C-alpha cells in the first residue's frame, strides 16, 4: 500500500524515531523575534495579526526559532535533539499558504560533523520514503570564511565582503566597484577631532540625539575608515581569486579539486574546511552531489556547511546545514553548535510518481 496517508505516517514514525524530543511549539507566536533575527526580508513572508495593544503576532512560519528560543530559555548548554512535523504558514506571491514541514535540530552536540551527518542521514531517509533520489547542493560557509581570512587585502574589507556572501548581485557589485577603484590623489583629511565636532554640530542643529543611534564618533571613525579604504586597494590578484573561487560550481569532486588547485596557486591553507566537506560526500551515497562555492543562505548565523536537496522538478525539498552563530543571536551567552534541516513535506509528496 503506497498512498499519501501511508507515506505521511511513515514520515511521522521517522520523525518520532530521531531519539530526541518531539517539539510542538505553539501556532501563534510573537512576531518580534522573527523580525529581530531575520529582518524585514523574512518579515514580509509572515502572516501577521495584532493584539489590542498593537503588539504583533504571527502564525508559526518555521520551527527552528521557537525550538531554539525555548531551549535557551530553559538554560542552554546540555546537548539536545529535537524533531518536528506540522504546519507552518507563509505569505507567497499568490497569497497566504499553509505547508507541512518536518525537520530536526541538533544543539550543543560534542562533534558538529557527526551532528551534520545525522542531519543528512535523516533528510535522505525521509526523501527515500517518497522514492526520491535527490540532487544535493553543498555550500561551504566555513570554506569561504577561511579563504577570506587568508586572502591578501586590507582587513577593513573582509567584513564588507563577508557580508555580501550568498547575495550574488550585491557581491558582484562590490567586486566590480573594487576592480574599478580609481587611483585618486588623496586630499588632506581633517583630524578626527575636527570631524567629530563638525558632525556633532550638524546633529545638534538637526535635533538628532547624540546617544540614541549613531554617535558623532562612530560617524567620524567610519568616514575616516572609508577614506582609508578608498586608498587601500584590494590587490587585483585577490579580486581575481575571489571571482575565480565564487565561480566554482559543479560535480562535487571536480569542484573541490578546482578549489584545491586555486588554494595551491594562491598558497592558501584550506585543509580543515575542505576535509569537512569531503567527509560528508561519503555519507550521501548515490545522490548526485554538486558543490557551489557561492552558495549560502543570506543569514549571517550560518557557519560550516550548508545544503539543499532538490527533486526532479528542481524545487527545493530540504534545506539545512550548520548554524553555530544562531544561538548567540537569540541570546545564548556562549557559542553553541547547532545543525539541522527542514523538509517541505507537500513538495516531497508532489514528487511521488503519479
Amino acid at each position, binding site marked *: 500500500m503506497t498512498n499519501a496517508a501511508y507515506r505521511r505516517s511513515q514520515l511521522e514514525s521517522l520523525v518520532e524515531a530521531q531519539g530526541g524530543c518531539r517539539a510542538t511549539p505553539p501556532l501563534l507566536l510573537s512576531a518580534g523575534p522573527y*523580525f*529581530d533575527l*531575520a*529582518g*524585514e*526580508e523574512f*518579515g*514580509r513572508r509572515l502572516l501577521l495579526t495584532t493584539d489590542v495593544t498593537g503588539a504583533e503576532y504571527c502564525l508559526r512560519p518555521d520551527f527552528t526559532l521557537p525550538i531554539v528560543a525555548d531551549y535557551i530559555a530553559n538554560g542552554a548548554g546540555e546537548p539536545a535533539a529535537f524533531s518536528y512535523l506540522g504546519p507552518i504558514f507563509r505569505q507567497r*506571491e499568490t497569497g497566504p499558504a499553509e505547508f507541512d514541514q518536518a525537520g530536526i535540530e541538533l544543539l550543543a552536540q560534542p562533534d558538529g560533523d557527526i551532528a551534520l551527518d545525522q542531519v543528512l542521514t535523516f533528510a535522505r531517509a525521509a526523501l527515500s520514503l517518497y522514492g526520491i533520489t535527490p540532487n544535493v547542493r553543498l555550500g561551504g560557509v566555513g570554506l569561504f570564511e577561511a579563504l577570506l581570512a587568508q586572502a591578501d587585502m586590507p582587513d577593513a574589507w573582509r*567584513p*564588507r565582503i563577508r*557580508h*555580501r556572501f550568498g*547575495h550574488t*548581485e*550585491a*557581491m558582484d*557589485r*562590490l567586486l566590480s*566597484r573594487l576592480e574599478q577603484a580609481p587611483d585618486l590623489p588623496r586630499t588632506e583629511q581633517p583630524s578626527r577631532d575636527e*570631524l567629530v565636532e*563638525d*558632525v556633532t554640530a*550638524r*546633529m545638534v*542643529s*538637526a*535635533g*538628532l*540625539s547624540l546617544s*540614541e*543611534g*549613531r554617535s*558623532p564618533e*562612530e*560617524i*567620524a571613525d*567610519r*568616514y575616516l575608515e*572609508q577614506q582609508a579604504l578608498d586608498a587601500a586597494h584590494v590587490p587585483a590578484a585577490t579580486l581575481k581569486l575571489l571571482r575565480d573561487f565564487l565561480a566554482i560550481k559543479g560535480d562535487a569532486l571536480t569542484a573541490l579539486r578546482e578549489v584545491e588547485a586555486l588554494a595551491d596557486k594562491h598558497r592558501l591553507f584550506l585543509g580543515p574546511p575542505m576535509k569537512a566537506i569531503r567527509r560528508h560526500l561519503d555519507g550521501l551515497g548515490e545522490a548526485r552531489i554538486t558543490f557551489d562555492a557561492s552558495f549560502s543562505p*543570506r*543569514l549571517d548565523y550560518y557557519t560550516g556547511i550548508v545544503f539543499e536537496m532538490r527533486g526532479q522538478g528542481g524545487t527545493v525539498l530540504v534545506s539545512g546545514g550548520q548554524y553555530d552563530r544562531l544561538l548567540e543571536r537569540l541570546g545564548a551567552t556562549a557559542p553553541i553548535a547547532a545543525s539541522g534541516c527542514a523538509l517541505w513535506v507537500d513538495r516531497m509528496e508532489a514528487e511521488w510518481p503519479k
Partner: protein
Amino acid sequence: MAQMTITLAVPSKGRLEELTRDWFARRGLTITRPGGARSYLGAIEGLPEVTVRFFPASEIARELIRGNIDLGVTGRDLIHETSEAGPDAVEFARDLEFGHADVVIAVPEAWIDVTHMHDLADVASDFRSRHGRWLRIATKYITITRQHFASAGIAEYRIVESLGATEAAPASGVADIVVDITSTGSTLAANGLRVLEDGVMLKSEANLIVSRTAQWTEQRRETLNALLGQLQG
C-alpha cells in the same frame, strides 16, 4: 450596451481630481459629477459606455490590481506600493505629466560617511552589534522599501510604519533614516536629511492605468481602445 461598458476611476478630491479633469478636458472629454463633491458616480459627456467612479487614489490602485475597475488615474508609486504583484497586474497607458515625485532614501545630513546605498549596507550590517537594535527606517512605502533593499542586498533593518510627517522621524528618535516621497527635496533638506546619490527608488507621476486583471471581452476592449484613442499625448 452593458457588455461594452467600462469603468474609469478618477481621484475623488482635491488637486488630483482637478488636474485629472483638466487633462481629460484638454483632450475634448468633459468628466461630469452630477451629484457634486459628495457623489461617487460620474460620466463622460457623449460617451455613455464609460462609467466614471470617484475613489481615493490609494483605492484606485488597489481596485485596478484586483481588476474590479478597468482603468483609472492614480500615482505610479501607489501601484508599486499596494502589492509586489501590482506593476504586473496593470499597464501604464498615459503619463499625465503632473504629480511628479520620487520615492527616495534619505539619511541625516550629519552622516557624512554615507553617500551611497553600499555605505548604508555597511552601516546596517553592524548596526545591531553596535547599538543593540536594528537600523530603523521610517516610511509609508513598506513594499517598495522591502523590494529595493532586498535587491541592494540589505536585510538588516526594521521598518517603522509612518503615516505622516515621515521627515520628522529621525529628529523625534522614532527612526534613523527615512524612505519618503518628494518632488523638490526641500522638505527633507529642511529637516536635515540628505538623499543618497543612488537613493531614488522610484520615479512616480500621475498615470492613466489599465487593469490587466479585469475581465476584458472583445467589446469592452473596443470601448477601451476608442477611449485611449481620444486621449493622445
